[in-house]
């Protein structure tokens, strides 16, 4: 993206609302995410005319219809490929990609992998509700083992995929996690937007109809404090509080080279060996995205953020180099190679 051409535009949340009736189920987590995005865009100085929301198919993918910008509701799983074409055609557009656990991890897993590996400069918001909503409640690739659903009446036996681990394995340079009603969602979105390259944000989203309160074990009031680890670059990995039963932290077990939960006494996290978060530490990111919930808290916030040149900058830059000093004379191109001239009836090889 050409930073010089970006001009901050003054908008309000209202400017990002469309005249379309929002058709999600009442109480759906998507409403909260929509509001967070509409609240964040003005803070980013985003220009509605220069913003494009691209989506695939599913509940989450209706998102573009409700944002007053350019929007393209495409086909199931393929939004990353459309977004790649859009960015290569016009890298100055600010592209957001909205997908779900079915759209982005199942039918479109391949494209998710490749947009991340190529590092196209888009913000990818994957709404993970661990269920298929729009097709009425079948288990999804992120559903937990044993999920009872119309297609798994005896409980699903598929091992769930971990979107952030998948993203990191695919070569993503920005990985973050949040949830629909979190007050920190906006900050995570801003960090994703600030990252130049493909930024991957997994947003846990409550499907009120088919998978109600699935994430309550870490988002419900009363347990959140003890079960959410909000990561901040340069800050120790602490969670819990004295009120909720003690401050704890994440430390490295040097013998097994794995993470462990340690108690922090009197605020002395250094003594407890608590790790200071470093968003550029890829090895640490691998451990955080694999950190199992239960024995550990849920890692939230910016897990990894280490930019490198974007795909469109490199590819289009290469094209630009290739064009240098060459003129696009079509007549010359058509007559290229070994030619001969016919004058009258005799062939005259040249």
């Amino acid at each position, binding site marked *: 993206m050409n930073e010089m051409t970006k001009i901050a535009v003054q908008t309000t949340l209202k400017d990002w609302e*469309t005249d*379309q009736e929002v058709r999600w189920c009442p109480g759906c987590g998507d409403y909260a995410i929509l509001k967070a995005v509409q609240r964040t865009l003005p803070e980013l100085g985003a220009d*509605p*005319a*220069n913003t*494009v929301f*691209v989506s695939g*198919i599913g509940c989450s993918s209706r998102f*573009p*219809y409700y944002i*007053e*910008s*350019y*929007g*393209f*509701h*495409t*086909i*199931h799983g*393929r939004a*990353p*490929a*459309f977004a*790649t*074409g*859009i960015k*290569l*055609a*016009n890298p*100055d*557009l600010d592209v957001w990609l909205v997908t779900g656990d079915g759209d982005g991890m199942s039918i479109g897993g*391949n*494209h998710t992998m*490749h947009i991340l590996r190529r590092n196209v400069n888009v913000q990818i918001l994957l709404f993970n509700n661990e269920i298929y909503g729009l097709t009425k409640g079948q288990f999804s690739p992120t559903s937990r083992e044993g999920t009872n659903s119309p297609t798994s009446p005896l409980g699903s036996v598929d091992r769930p995929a971990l979107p952030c681990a998948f993203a990191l394995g695919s070569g993503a340079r920005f990985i973050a996690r949040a949830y629909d009603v979190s007050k920190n969602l906006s900050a995570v979105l801003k960090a994703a937007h600030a990252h130049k390259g493909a930024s991957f944000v997994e947003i846990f989203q409550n499907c009120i109809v088919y998978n109600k309160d699935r994430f309550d074990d870490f988002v419900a009031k009363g347990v959140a404090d003890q079960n959410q680890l909000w990561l901040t670059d340069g800050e120790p990995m602490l969670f819990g509080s004295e009120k909720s039963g003690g401050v704890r932290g994440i430390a490295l077990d040097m013998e097994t080279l794995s993470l462990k939960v340690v108690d922090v006494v009197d605020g002395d996290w250094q003594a407890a060996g608590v790790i200071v978060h470093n968003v550029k530490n890829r090895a640490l990111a691998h451990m955080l995205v694999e950190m199992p919930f239960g024995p550990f808290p849920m890692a939230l916030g910016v897990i990894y953020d280490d930019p490198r040149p974007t795909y469109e900058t490199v*590819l*289009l830059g290469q*094209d630009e180099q*290739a*064009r240098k000093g060459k*003129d*696009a004379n*079509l*007549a010359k*191109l*058509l*007559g*290229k*190679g*070994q*030619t*001969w*001239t*016919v*004058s*009258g*009836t*005799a*062939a*005259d*090889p040249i």
Partner: protein
Amino acid sequence: MATLVDGPDALTGGKDTPNPEAVVVRFAGDSGDGMQLTGGQFTLSTALAGNDLATFPDFPAEIRAPQGTLFGVSAFQINFGSTEIDTAGDQPDVLVAMNPAALKTNVGALKVGGLIIADTGEFNKRNLEKAKYEVNPLEDGSLEKWQLLAFDISALTLEAVKPFGLGNKEALRCKNMWTLGLALWMFDRDRQPLIDWLNAKFGKNPVLAEANVAALNAGHAYGETAELAGPLKQYHIAPVESEPGLYRTVTGAEAISLGLVAGAQLAELPMFFGGYPITPASAILHNLARLKEYGVTTFQAEDEIAAIASAIGASYAGQLGVTSSSGPGIALKGEAMGLAIMTELPLVIVNSQRGGPSTGLPTKTEQSDLYQAVYGRNGDAPMPVIAARSPSDCFEVAIEAVRIAVQYMTPVMVLTDGYIANAAEPWKVPDPASIKPFPAKFLGEKNGPNGELLPFARDEKGARPWIKPGTPSLMHRIGGIEKNPGTGNIDYSPASHQIMTDARRDKVDGVANTIPLQEVVHGETSGKLVVVGWGSTYGPIYQAVRRARRKGLDVSHVHVRHIWPMPSNLGDLLKGYDKVLVPEMNTGQFKTVLRDQFLIDAQPLNKTSGQPFTIAEIEEAIVAALGGDVGGEVDADKTQLPSIKSVNP
């Protein structure tokens, strides 16, 4: 086809035999023998000599099939002459067989009395066994009906390149140049362009260049010496009378690429090409990847779906989106084509057809994706389809596809096939300034009567406006869900779906208003019989009709470029003939569409052997049709270019 004027002995007769009008030569060898390269260079030399020509490269799907096997044979056929040439020729006059397998799989096609040039050095026990010969055919008299010229090309090549100190394997690789040298001598060709080419090709390895040039010269010298004794004779094929102008040879894949570049320039659009490698379509992606300075961006996607999806994304963002594939890949793109139809975005999809279904015959030609092109999507999903009839015709067809896509805001499918994609023919280089431009227009401000934005309002062609993201005040949402006829907002009310379905159909039907009326290639606008073709059957139909008319038969040739929608006069035109014969390299797909559209008794002539029609096959069907019989299947055994599989099941 203009054939040997004095019958088959013209090539092998005495010194006083007049020069023939046209000659068909087939080079056949192991896939590692460099036959395609030999054929390609012989083609170039033919073009430089001013002959008209058509080629037919025929190679196995395997990159390097096991040496000496029947399925590893790679062949290249060229028909060239001093008159108009439209096919690669029914029966070769000359067969160059580099090993027993090449002889076995190709000799059946050779004209009786034709000349076989065989490399005895390769006719050893091991290779004979691999080719399933019990006795050496060069020695048992089984080749009696042909002229045989067998000598040890391998040994002669080794001798010629000895001074360069190459290893045995490397030295033997020069065999194809030795053979090419002989062929150049036979047809009185200038060696210099080939020598220049070899020096350029092996610029980094001058020893290899010299060795290859030595082999080429040795083959040529052998021709001069052998003339004294053997059946070998030198011919001069006079240059064809062509329109004055600048010429070059072009393959279908090249012409498609150039046509797309020209089309984008005429539309004043940058081009985005999203592709995924597949035989025989990859060459288009290869060609365009080298044309960045013409405003081309190429993107090798992760799969066929991403290839088309990225192209649609680019079109949405204001570029000309193009994607290309072959049958199986086109199948994968189907859903995305539906989205381009639904969102009414311009897009060009090139299908280089190959034998199907499934993986089918990756390197062989067929025309069996016509139903897929016209009907192969979910829902009522009309899409213009146009077909190229020859390698050079691909240029115009590609431009026409871009025009329709941009003017009608629709995806357009271009049908070529494996034969057209790989085959070469001379091409009179067009002057781009002579082609009328059709600049794309983008909406700049709100277009509704009350100052509102109507992304799905329609112009006189039924096309919606093209709106580039980034344009101030024109923010809107599009997608695959049925929409309101004007605003494009989600609207699946009964009235809305009816109106939009009709509008999409009418728009595509309306393309017929801006395409030329159907003309008759050859013959009259009414009569006893019309042969209706589309795509690469053009050459054999053209020549078959010409021959039949010379015999006084009442037959005409109509060749359809616009498969969907068809030219508005086509139905009436075809109804003016008593009989309609439709030769196709499929089981009768266009025939069915013609019957459906015009309620005419179109009769099929079908061939699905992975090989193009011969002129004789179509001529026979014409005679039969006029004698009261009608077309029918071409017996696979009768096809004169047997597929390798038919002799090695």
